[in-house]
């Protein structure tokens, strides 16, 4: 059981310590152990904290919806409209992005999205624009999509590939239209995979700091940027811990709600 020990010491223990630290004080730029709820009160009474909280929540929700909706037709086409060989290659290519530096990909997007970037140049050629995209929520969303879209397609594809083809056939034979088959047969059958893909998208975009920072312009901040600013600029680690714990609790609630929905039996 070396793993239990390892995970206890280096996974659970740091998180517990984070919780503990959120009650510590900072005096003369040094942390002093103690038990004081002042960090919680200070953080929770700040308007900018709640602004950041809702902003992050909304960004992550939008990213989740957009990613799921954009990923579905792709996963659907790969699962039902292509040969097994194509599917295998598609899976292989969808896994490649996980092994390329996310930072470098974000840097590439800066090239595309900038005021003088490639996309605006192209739009300019046909007489439009320039549209600001870098340092706007649109830029952030593109970053989230870069991070989550391949994963979402893979997860949806796996669950769609397991849908029983006979049921789809049956629906067709019983005169069910294409769209209706998709919405009332295929989606319910692949529900678990679709929801799990959405949960992962939510978790990743909720915690990511690179996209909002380098594509979204870092201002106004999201929670993860808030953590970095609080940690790196001052010695206010306890307050950063408050933000971190709030994030973890939020994620746990979302994940729990989603998993319950995913595995609930249909009435």
């Amino acid at each position: 059981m070396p793993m239990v020990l390892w995970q206890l010491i280096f996974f659970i223990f740091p998180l517990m310590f984070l919780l503990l630290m959120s009650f510590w004080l900072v005096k003369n730029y040094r942390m002093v152990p103690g038990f004081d709820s002042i960090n919680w009160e200070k953080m929770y009474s700040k308007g900018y904290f709640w602004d950041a909280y809702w902003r992050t929540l909304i960004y992550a929700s939008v990213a989740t919806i957009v990613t799921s909706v954009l990923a579905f037709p792709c996963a659907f086409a790969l699962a039902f409209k292509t040969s097994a060989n194509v599917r295998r290659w598609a899976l292989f290519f969808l896994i490649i992005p996980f092994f390329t530096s996310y930072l470098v990909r974000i840097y590439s997007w800066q090239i595309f999205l900038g005021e003088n970037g490639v996309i605006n140049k192209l739009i300019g050629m046909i007489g439009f624009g320039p549209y600001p995209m870098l340092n706007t929520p649109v830029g952030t969303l593109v970053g989230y999509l870069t991070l989550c879209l391949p994963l979402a397609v893979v997860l949806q594809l796996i669950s769609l590939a397991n849908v029983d083809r006979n049921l789809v056939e049956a629906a067709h034979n019983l005169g069910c239209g294409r769209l209706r088959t998709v919405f009332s047969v295929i989606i319910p059958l692949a529900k678990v995979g679709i929801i799990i893909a959405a949960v992962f998208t939510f978790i990743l975009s909720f915690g990511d700091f690179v996209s909002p920072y380098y594509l979204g312009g870092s201002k106004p901040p999201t929670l993860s940027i808030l953590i970095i600013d609080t940690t790196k600029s001052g010695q206010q680690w306890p307050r950063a811990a408050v933000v971190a714990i709030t994030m973890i609790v939020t994620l746990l609630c979302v994940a729990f709600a989603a998993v319950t929905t995913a595995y609930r039996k249909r009435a």
Partner: protein
Amino acid sequence: MTKERILRLFLHLYVCAVFVFVFLPIITSFVFSFNSDRFPSLPLGHFTTHWYQTIFNDSDIWEAFGVSAIVSASVAVLSTFIGFCTAYTDYRFNFRGKSIYLALALLPPTIPLVIMGLAMLALLSRINMSGEIYSIIVSHVVLCSPFAMAVIRMRLAQIDPDLESAAWNLGASEWRAMHQVILPFCAPAIVSAFCLTAAVSFDEFAVSWFVSGLNKTVPVIILEILQGNTDPQINAIGSIVFITSMTLVVLAQIIYMTKASDQRALTGVITRRQDQ
């Protein structure tokens, strides 16, 4: 069925569009790493290996590659070992609290990296372990062992459960059975878990950024360049990192495929002989 054909065409085009979106930044980075202009834009400048030469002559970057190599190799060894133990425990034993055990084993990737970084930094600096190479290794093992566990567990699920008991019946000790039956069977998964965790660790930046101190890894260097001005060096470094990780992944895949199919052929022969 023209309607069907149009639909199919549309879906295929859509899939292509998604792939373009996913691969556009990767390919761009390659292209611009050979582009002479300092500020990347269209039309492209002329071909140059200037950016590669700059990083080649930069001792900081060499050092970072060294740190990254040490880190990812050690992480791969440790997390593959831990992953194997976890996976084997899950495969072999049933015990009270197993669901908690599995949750503990698989949860780390769901915690945002920034938070993991902050937590690790807070704890490690408290016990004077931060800012060293081993602090990065420790944190990465936490992040990577779930992946190793998942890969090896999938392989264990394919094993014939009678195989191990057969070995015991034939007088092999637990260790011998492990050594001569389980380990060879899992070998392809172990190798691919090794490459996978090495690649994940090689690319990880958030946690490393928090705990690394002066021992910067390659992604931390990229992050720091990114905070400054536009600098095509990133593309060059990124391309090198990409090729390194891809080599690891493709290697893992090839080894897994060939070994696994060899063994399937072998077990096939054995079962056929038993049938006769």
